[in-house]
């Protein structure tokens, strides 16, 4: 396999992973389902492209701006929708995601900045976006966010979120401010999605509202479920697998999406806790165990890995 081709898949896995990580905080840890995250990705993409193309700002600033705008929007959205329960919240996010896409579809803007002309032309999209997202950059960003996320979920805040996922009423009774934690989860996931949007735009070099249909949001949510709710490593494994899978199945042609749909159903039936099922893959643990085995020491291990599956 050629490296360039694999690199493409890896870059896509990286920014998809960023989105999925954000969703994992929202869905896997706090228990709220979003079917509108493609909308946040869309916002992030557009804002970052406007920054780099119209204002000639550096790529990093573009990414940050995309993330921040998306986060502000997420906060605003959270303010009005977070009190909705279960299905209704996920329907609201569905509506928001579609609405964002439709707004960009109808948006016609024309700027002249420093003599340069920049056009937002509705459905025609923006072409010739500078290709700034390299594998190195995306890997660094993703690693930073994976570490940050694992710090967050392993902190007191992360446990509060888990409590909300398991039983919101009980969490509230225990003195957890459920609204502010849900808001935190919402903002974080919107931030992640926004930054990922910027990476996506600068990887493809092309941006079109059509790229952010509802099915994309569904795909992201499926990745979270597939990897396992409440597991960071699960999200990583799930995303990389599901990003690579369609590429590997390309030879099957027409039938690959059929298998994809079937796989989703089978996973829900056979292993709904996902690949990792709320557990983390701990490299240190395995290394430790292996060395001990080699040294033939048979004393029991203090393990974080052997708890019962949390379902």
């Amino acid at each position, binding site marked *: 396999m050629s490296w360039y081709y694999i690199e493409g898949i890896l870059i896509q896995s990286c920014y998809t992973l960023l989105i999925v990580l954000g969703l994992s905080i929202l869905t896997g840890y706090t228990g709220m389902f979003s079917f509108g995250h493609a909308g946040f990705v869309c916002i992030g993409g557009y804002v970052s492209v406007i920054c780099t193309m119209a204002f000639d700002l550096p790529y990093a600033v573009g990414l940050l701006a995309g993330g921040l705008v998306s986060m502000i929007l997420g906060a605003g959205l959270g303010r009005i929708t977070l009190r909705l329960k279960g299905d209704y919240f996920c329907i609201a996010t569905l509506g928001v995601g*579609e*609405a964002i896409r439709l707004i960009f579809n109808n948006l016609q803007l024309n700027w002249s900045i420093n003599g340069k002309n920049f056009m937002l032309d509705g459905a025609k999209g923006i072409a010739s976006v500078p290709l700034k997202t390299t594998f190195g950059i995306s890997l660094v960003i993703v690693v930073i966010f994976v570490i940050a996320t694992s710090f967050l979920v392993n902190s007191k805040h992360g446990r509060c979120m888990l409590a909300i996922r398991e039983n919101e009423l009980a969490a509230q009774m225990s003195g957890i401010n459920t609204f502010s934690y849900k808001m935190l989860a919402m903002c974080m996931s919107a931030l992640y999605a926004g930054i990922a949007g910027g990476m996506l735009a600068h990887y493809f070099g092309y941006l079109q509202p059509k790229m952010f249909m509802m099915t994309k949001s569904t795909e992201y949510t499926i990745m979270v479920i597939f990897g396992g709710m409440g597991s960071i490593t699960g999200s990583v494994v799930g995303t990389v697998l599901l990003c690579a899978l369609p590429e590997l199945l390309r030879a099957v042609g027409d039938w690959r999406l059929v298998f994809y749909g079937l796989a*989703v159903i089978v996973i829900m039936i056979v292993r709904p806790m996902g690949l990792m099922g709320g557990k983390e893959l701990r490299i240190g643990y395995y290394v430790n165990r292996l060395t001990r085995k080699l040294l033939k020491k048979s004393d029991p291990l203090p393990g974080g890995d052997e708890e019962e599956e949390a379902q």
Partner: protein
Amino acid sequence: MGIGYYLQQLVNGICLGGMYALMSVGYSLVYSIMNFSNFAHGGVIMVGAYVGYYALTALGCPFLIAFLLCGVGSGLLAIVIERLVYNPLRKRHAPSLYFIISAMGASIFLENFVIASIDGTPRNYPAVFANSISIGGLSLGIDSLLMIIVSAAALLILMFIIQKTKIGLAIRACSYNERASTLMGVNGDLVIFTVFLMGGILAGFAGILYGMRFIVKPTIGQVTNKSFVAAVFGGLGSLPGAILGSLLLGIMEIFVASWNSTLRDLFVYALLILVLVVKPSGLMGKVTEDKA
């Protein structure tokens, strides 16, 4: 633009709303019992439309037979989906979000199965009732008229079943509290079977009527998103709500489109969000509570 213009738009709106109603009732029925949004419903409608297409063209059935075949085909499919996809989850008391994901999976599966096994080419129904009638300057297609009549009749029968029969009583009981009613001797499996069957039959009717009026392709399942919005607007889980929501949505959509045709979908989704924020249970929906 005179009064005739507005009347014509109103008629257009009612036609559209009637179609949404046939579709959204399926969402609402399932939601009322199982508390999840059955996104596979769109796929069932699509399959119904294909059954109708092949019944009319390849088999050369008369319309009425094709119409009934659609109902049977979609009804069976809905039951099969329930048995294979939802039943295992139900047995395990999985959270409703797993149901939604499975439903999404089923809808991806159905859509692409049709693409892979038939093909993605849009099909056009042979003209069954191509004529239109004109009343005082208002044009109304026979197919649209049929759609309204069929919608109304099917929905009335459905309401009758739910309000007046024993199984209807069981369905209503289950929609209040499934666990309590099963404890009282209601056969939960039978209720769910009936609900999916009825939803499926209506989906089949919606499919063939949709096909006659529009065009059949594997992605029409996405069109049903709007009927889902209508169900939410009317209040998920409430049948009269779904019908009212559908009609209102249809009419509003038409008038928004006549004012600015490109803002139509934006309006639909903005309305969805607004309804959810102001009155999350929709116009006539049952109030969701936290089941601790």
